[in-house]
């Protein structure tokens, strides 16, 4: 009687993790279904007419009007201009954030300088400050001082560097770049710029990819600041989307087609890089 109990207790020592039973699969499967369903429903609605999606009980399979609806959305709204705008903003912001975060993260992770800890603490502290606090003066600056309101630089410049990216790259580079390699480089007469070029950038590449992805998504999805500083004359994707839903008579199949088209780039990116993004989020969580 006692031996099996002891054996049972010991089994995890070799397995380390418990193996999932049927119940775990069922609950997790339900969670994943719940996560996917609204997006699947968007695809269904985007491929049918407004009348069809208002049937009770609801239709659950995609129809054949996806292409028709997509062209209609592009005809009836400024989505084409909006997508070009969002692409320019998100790409520029991503390039800038990845570059500044890698350099700054390297400085925090591997370089010794006066005030390092104080500066690092202040960077972390700025992550806790709500972005909305400065919104009115920020708008006044953009509109009256720089005359940037309704121009893309109003979206790009304030987002060109951020605390999250800096901290994210620091966490990664602490472990990814061996101190010995940097010391050896110094001995060989490498300048700091040379170290960045030959040691840091090659080692940082995976994290730069993840940070780039996260930054692109955040920039593409941003709503509050574009809503304040841009108009429907020069919209981003999210603004066009909100405009599409604001009309009196709503054609929901068109609204959801808009939502699908607006989400398509980030969904595709997620399909391509989802694994690395999951790893990046989880690594950032434990090293903090």
């Amino acid at each position, binding site marked *: 009687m006692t031996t099996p109990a002891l054996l049972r207790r010991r089994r995890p020592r070799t397995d380390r993790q418990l193996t*999932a039973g049927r119940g775990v699969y069922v609950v997790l499967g339900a969670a994943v279904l719940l996560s996917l369903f609204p997006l699947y429903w968007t695809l269904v609605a985007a491929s049918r007419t407004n009348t069809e999606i*208002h049937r009770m009980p609801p239709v659950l399979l995609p129809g054949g009007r996806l292409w028709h609806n997509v062209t209609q959305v592009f005809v009836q709204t400024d989505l084409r201009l909006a997508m070009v705008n969002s692409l320019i903003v998100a790409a520029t912001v991503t390039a800038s954030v990845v570059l500044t975060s890698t350099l700054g993260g390297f400085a925090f992770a591997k370089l010794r300088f006066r005030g390092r800890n104080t500066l690092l603490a202040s960077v972390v502290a700025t992550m806790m400050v*709500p972005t909305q606090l*400065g919104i*009115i003066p920020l708008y006044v600056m953009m509109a009256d001082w720089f005359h940037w309101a309704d121009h893309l630089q109003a979206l790009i410049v304030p987002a060109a*560097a951020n605390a999250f990216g800096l901290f994210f790259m620091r966490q990664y580079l602490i472990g990814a770049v061996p101190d010995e390699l940097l010391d050896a480089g110094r001995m060989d007469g490498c300048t700091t710029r040379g170290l960045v070029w030959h040691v840091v950038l090659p080692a940082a590449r995976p994290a730069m990819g993840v940070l780039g992805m996260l930054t692109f998504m955040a920039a593409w999805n941003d709503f509050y600041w574009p809503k304040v500083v841009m108009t429907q004359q020069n919209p981003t*994707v999210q603004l066009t989307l909100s405009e599409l839903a604001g009309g009196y008579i709503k054609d929901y199949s068109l609204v959801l087609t808009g939502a699908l088209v607006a989400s398509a780039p980030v969904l595709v990116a997620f399909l391509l890089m989802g694994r690395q993004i999951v790893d990046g989020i989880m690594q950032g969580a434990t090293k903090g």
Partner: protein
Amino acid sequence: MAASTAAAPGARAPARTAGHRWHRLDRTVSPYLYLSPFFVVFGVFGLFPMLYTGYVSFTAWRADRPGSEGRWVGFENYRKLLDDPFFWNAVKNTLGIGVLATVPQLLLALGLAHLLNYRMRGRTLMRLGVLLPNVTSVAAVTLIFVQLFGRDFGMVNWFLSLFGVEHVDWQAGTLSSWSAIAAIVTWRWTGYNALLYLAAMQSVPFELYEAAALDGASRWRQFRSVTIPMLRPTILFTVIVSTIGALQLFGEPMLFSQQQDPTTGGSQHQFQTLALYSYNQFWGRFKYGYGAAISWAMFLLIVLVAVVNFLAARRMRGAE
């Protein structure tokens, strides 16, 4: 390799003092150079506007009244705020939606992380599946949910009707609108937080569970006495971050509204959050001074709630 090359530059160094000085300058200046983009951007577009908001909140600045921008009125805006029923209404809505949008979300995330921690087939697919909602935009997600929460033809009401619940008008009621908005937030963020918890769970030393099992602790007991205490830093982090996010909700209540003016947060202001109210005042009514006062009040509320959460979490530790 390092040892063999070390001798050469060392021997040459005295002959190249200019180069040596350049190297010292490089090592002193480079760190600051690399950090300067962040601090310049944050200083100009982050810190300065925040402080300036504080100044603006003490003025009677209205964008539709030229020359009013410097008119100092002391605490007048804040006094008005304390007597403003719409402000208190917004505080109530923000806190109510905040609780509904964070507490169930983090509990669900904890449970989800526990399940994801099992060894299973399709592990990566499960993780990808629960994270997917997080990459879609607030605008897109809210519009999708507005349709799902539709009164007459929404799928949520159709599902509820199977259990005899008739046509809920989700936008109309206080609790119903809060719940619907909270559902949107929960759907978008549960998987993300679950991954953070999962990462923390995987770094718990397995020996702790073994020791607990040897002491005869049940699964549930192990979860409570080993997992939760080891996860406390992560839990604290997610509580603070979700709180800050939930108290700033803007896009969700705005796009959830079906009113002509979406900044009112429903026909009776029943889901007008502080962020919406502030936007309504400075953007819709040009009251920069008053809007700035609302922004600062919102910031103080966030700090207050974060401190309360922090102390509560610390007391949790003391109770163990």
